[in-house]
C-alpha cells in the first residue's frame, strides 16, 4: 500500500538563514497524500519559517520543496497549490464570510454561480451553513477558525498548511477544536501540515509528528512512538513529563544492566540499550510509569520505598511528590484517581515500582536544555 501512495509534499535538505542565524538546517521529509502531519517544537525552533517556505512566503537558501512532484522554486505563493491558515487567522475584516471564502476562487476567475455554489458547499462542510452574510467580528473564536480553514479548503489545495491556528483559543474550545479538526481532515482527505508548540495538539491529531529543535528535526515518528520511544533527550523532555535521574551503568551483560545513582539507588534497566559499563547516563522515567504500592505478585519491577512529600491533586492528572529513602531526589509520581490511594498523606512511606522497560537512558548532557 505504501508504494502506490502519492507524495503530496516533499522537502529536501531545505536551509534558511537570516543574516548569521540559521533558522532551518537541511531539513528533509515527505508527507503522503491524506496524512495529518505535525511539526512540533518550541517557539523559535524554525517551524514557522519552514512552513512559510512551503507556502512560498519565504524562499529557501538551499534545498528543494516539491508539491505533488512539482518543484516549487520560484513559484510565488499566489500560484502554489498550498494554502496557509494563519496563526491569527488573517480573515479579512472588510469582507463578510462569503467574500472571504470566495476571495481565492474569484482570483482564479471562476464564474459567479460556481463560486456561490462552492462557498455554500464548503460552509456546509465546516458546519456553518447559512453563515454567508455574517461579518467577521460577529463570529465566535471557533467559527472564525472554521471560516479560515474553509477559505483555504475551498481552493482544494494539495497541501493545507496550518500555523498554530488554535493558539488564540481558550483551553476548553481548544480541546474541542482539536477533535473537530481531526474529524474534518478525515472527512475532506486533504493533506494537512500543522505546526504547533503544543504537544497535545500534535499527539491527538497527527498521523505523524516531527519534533523540531534549533532548526532541525530531532525525531519523525508516530505520536505513540514519540511518547514511548523518544530518540533524543530533547524529545524525551519536550513530549510529556519526565523525571530525570543522573547516574552510571553497572554490571552490563547481554540481557540486562543496572543503573546506579550517586545516592545508592540501584535499578535494573532493559539491556537493549547500548551502554558500556561505567557510562554516565540520565535516566528518564515518566510519572505514569511508576506504580504506587504495586501488587507484590508482580515480578520484574524495580521497587523502592519513598517518602511522600506532598500530594498535588489535579483531577485525572494528580501527582505526588516523593523522595526515595536515603535520597533528596524529588520524583513526580502519577496518582491514579481510582480510590485505591485515597488514604495517602504527606509523610507516609510507600513502595513504588516501575517496569524496567519504561526507563530510558541517554548520555548525560553537559549543557542544560529547557
Amino acid at each position, binding site marked *: 500500500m505504501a508504494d502506490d501512495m502519492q507524495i503530496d509534499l516533499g522537502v529536501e535538505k531545505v536551509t534558511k538563514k537570516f543574516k548569521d542565524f540559521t533558522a532551518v538546517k537541511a531539513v528533509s521529509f515527505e508527507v503522503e497524500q491524506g496524512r495529518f502531519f505535525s511539526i512540533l517544537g518550541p517557539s523559535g525552533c524554525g517551524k514557522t519559517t519552514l512552513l512559510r517556505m512551503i*507556502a512560498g*512566503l519565504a524562499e529557501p537558501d538551499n534545498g528543494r520543496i516539491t508539491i505533488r512532484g512539482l518543484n516549487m522554486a520560484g513559484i510565488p505563493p*499566489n*500560484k502554489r497549490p498550498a494554502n496557509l491558515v494563519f496563526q*491569527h487567522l488573517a480573515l479579512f475584516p472588510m469582507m463578510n464570510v462569503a467574500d472571504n471564502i470566495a*476571495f*481565492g476562487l474569484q482570483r482564479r476567475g471562476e464564474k459567479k454561480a460556481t463560486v456561490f455554489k462552492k462557498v455554500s458547499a464548503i460552509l456546509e462542510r465546516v458546519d456553518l451553513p447559512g453563515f454567508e452574510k455574517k461579518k467577521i467580528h460577529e463570529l465566535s473564536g471557533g467559527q472564525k477558525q472554521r471560516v479560515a480553514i474553509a477559505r483555504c479548503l475551498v481552493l482544494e489545495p494539495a497541501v493545507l498548511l496550518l500555523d498554530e491556528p488554535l493558539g488564540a483559543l481558550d483551553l476548553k474550545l481548544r480541546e474541542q477544536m482539536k477533535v473537530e479538526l481531526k474529524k474534518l481532515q478525515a472527512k475532506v482527505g486533504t493533506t494537512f501540515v500543522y505546526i504547533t508548540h503544543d504537544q497535545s495538539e500534535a499527539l491527538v491529531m497527527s498521523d505523524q509528528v516531527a519534533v523540531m529543535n534549533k532548526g532541525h528535526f530531532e525525531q519523525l515518528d508516530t505520536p505513540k512512538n514519540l511518547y514511548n520511544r523518544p530518540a533524543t533527550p530533547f524529545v524525551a523532555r519536550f513530549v510529556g513529563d519526565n523525571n530525570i535521574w543522573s547516574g552510571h551503568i553497572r554490571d552490563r551483560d547481554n540481557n540486562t544492566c543496572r543503573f546506579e545513582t550517586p545516592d545508592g539507588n540501584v535499578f535494573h534497566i532493559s539491556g537493549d540499550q547500548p551502554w558500556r559499563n561505567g557510562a554516565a547516563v540520565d535516566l528518564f522515567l515518566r510519572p505514569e510509569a511508576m506504580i504506587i504500592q504495586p501488587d507484590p505478585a508482580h515480578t520484574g519491577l524495580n521497587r523502592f520505598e519513598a517518602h511522600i512529600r506532598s500530594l498535588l491533586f489535579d483531577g485525572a492528572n494528580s501527582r505526588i511528590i516523593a523522595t526515595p529513602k536515603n535520597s533528596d531526589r524529588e520524583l513526580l509520581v502519577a496518582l491514579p484517581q481510582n480510590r485505591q490511594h485515597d488514604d495517602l498523606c504527606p509523610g507516609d512511606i510507600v513502595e513504588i515500582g516501575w517496569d524496567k522497560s519504561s526507563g530510558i537512558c541517554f548520555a548525560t548532557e553537559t549543557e542544560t536544555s529547557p
Partner: protein
Amino acid sequence: MTQHRKWGLFFFLTPVLLWLTLLIVLPHIDLLRMSFILETDTGETEWRLSNYASFFKEPIYWLTFVRTAIYSIIVTLLTLVVALPVSFFITKVARPGTRGFLMLLILLPFWVSELVRVYGWMILLRESGVINHFLLKLGILDQPVEMLYNDAAMILGLVYTSMLFMVVPLVSVLESLDDSLIEAAYDLGADMGTIVFKIIVPHATPGIVSGAIVVFMLTLGNYLTPNLMGGKNSLWFTEQIYNQFIASFNWNQGAAFGFLLLLLSSGIVWLGLKLSGQTLGKVVR
C-alpha cells in the same frame, strides 16, 4: 466630594465656554449677519441678499469659486496618490529600525514655515530659477521658461504643502494593518492590484478620509500658495475674500464670500464623512 466635582466642572468649563463662545460662535454669527447687510452710499445699513446676488451675477466670482473647489479636489486626489506608496513603504517595506528616521525626514519640512517652503519652490521654478539655470546649462533649453505663476506650479505647491496631512493619518492606519492579511491574500492567489484595492485601500479608508478632509480644507482655505505661485489674477477664492476686505474695503461682500467658502468647506467635509460612514470625532483620532 460632589462639591468638589461641581467646582471642578466650573473650573474647567468656564475658560472653554469663553473660548468657544467668544472666538468661535460669536464671530461666525457676526460673519453671517454682516453678509446680509448692505451699506448704502449714504452710510445707512439695510438687510439685503444683494451680497449673495452679486456673487451669482458676477461670473468672475462664482467661476473662481467653482475653480477653487475643483482644484482643491484635484490637489486632494493627487496628494493621496503620491502619499499612499510613501506611507506603505514606511510602514510595510522599510526595515523597522529606519522607520523612525524616515518619518522624521518626512515631518521635517513641515515644521518649517509654509512661506519658506513656497519661497523655495519659487527659487526653483521661476524664470531666473535654479531649474532653468540647470536646463540651460545642460543645453535642454536655449531660452529660460517661466515655470512659476501658472496652475501647474500652484497645484505642485499645494500638493507639497498638504503632503504631511495625508502621510501622517495614512502611516498610522497602515501601521494597524496586520501583515498577515496581505500574506493571506497573496497566498490565496491575489496579485498586487487585488491586494491594493481589496485589502489595503479598504483597510486604510478611515485614514484616507481623515487625510483627505484635512487636505481639502487646508487647500480650499490656502491663500499663500495660490497667491505666490499661481497666476497673477486672483483666481483662488481666498484671494477674492482678501480683495474685498483689504483692497475694496467691502467687508459685507467679503463676509458673504467667507460664508460661502465656509459652507463649501463644511459641505464637502460632511459629504466625505457621510460617504465613508464616519464621524468627525472618529476621524480626529
